[in-house]
């Protein structure tokens, strides 16, 4: 019926085949947090949609389809990654190195710096933080989606937060805007507004 993702959110249970489209935006965001690369993310979403479609009979209508789709998506991601493990590790290393070299001299505020820090987290930390922190999953839902214990999700979220704050040189309670010397120098001469510069 409806092709508009946003419209169907509160509608009564749809035919699962009609419902998938409503989760595509969230799937793309989740995939992006895993792959860290928009075109890989969309390839991953495509693979996951095809798998989901083939396995639709195993989806219980009325249950959380988003969590079900995310499970398929992340399983696909991790199994692809296992298949090309060495390659991925090399890529990860190179990727992290590029990021580390990038100087914070342009006065960009929290958003870009945050993304740079976020993509350096481990995949399991990124997904835990994304599910719980951005997508409003309960710890229980996130645990089910990732097929681990609730305690594991909680500790991944905590470790992700700690890692983020270390990556961004945050002291306790400090705002996310970087306060290292360079950034301070830039900010004092060129203080951007608090909102989205983008």
């Amino acid at each position, binding site marked *: 019926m409806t092709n508009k993702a946003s419209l169907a959110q509160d509608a009564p249970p749809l035919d699962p085949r009609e419902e998938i489209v409503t989760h595509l935006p969230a799937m793309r*965001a989740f995939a992006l947090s895993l792959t860290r690369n928009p075109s890989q993310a969309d390839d991953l979403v495509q693979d996951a949609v095809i798998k989901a479609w083939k396995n639709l009979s195993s989806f219980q209508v009325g249950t959380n389809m988003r969590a079900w789709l995310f499970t398929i998506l992340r399983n696909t991601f991790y199994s692809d990654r296992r298949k090309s493990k060495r390659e991925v590790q090399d890529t990860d290393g190179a990727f992290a190195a590029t990021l580390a070299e990038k100087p914070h001299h342009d006065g960009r505020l929290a958003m870009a710096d*945050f993304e740079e820090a976020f993509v350096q987290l481990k995949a399991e930390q990124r997904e835990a933080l994304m599910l719980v922190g951005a997508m409003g999953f309960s710890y229980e839902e996130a645990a089910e989606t990732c097929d681990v214990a609730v305690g594991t999700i909680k500790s991944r979220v905590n470790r992700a937060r700690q890692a983020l704050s270390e990556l961004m040189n945050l002291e306790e309670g400090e705002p996310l805007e970087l306060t290292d010397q360079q950034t301070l120098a830039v900010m004092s001469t060129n203080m951007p507004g608090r909102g989205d510069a983008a």
Partner: protein
Amino acid sequence: MAQHKPKHNLDEQIEMNLKKVYQKTLDEEVPDRFLELLEQLKEQDARNDQ
């Protein structure tokens, strides 16, 4: 472990930033390739049903 920190500030800011990152993708139009893919899958099913 570290239960002593002022949770509100850092955690809230991390969450806020995450949601912004997430929202950027949510606000994007779903690319046609996905709508086309779903159409194809439906057509495939319809053919198989016959």
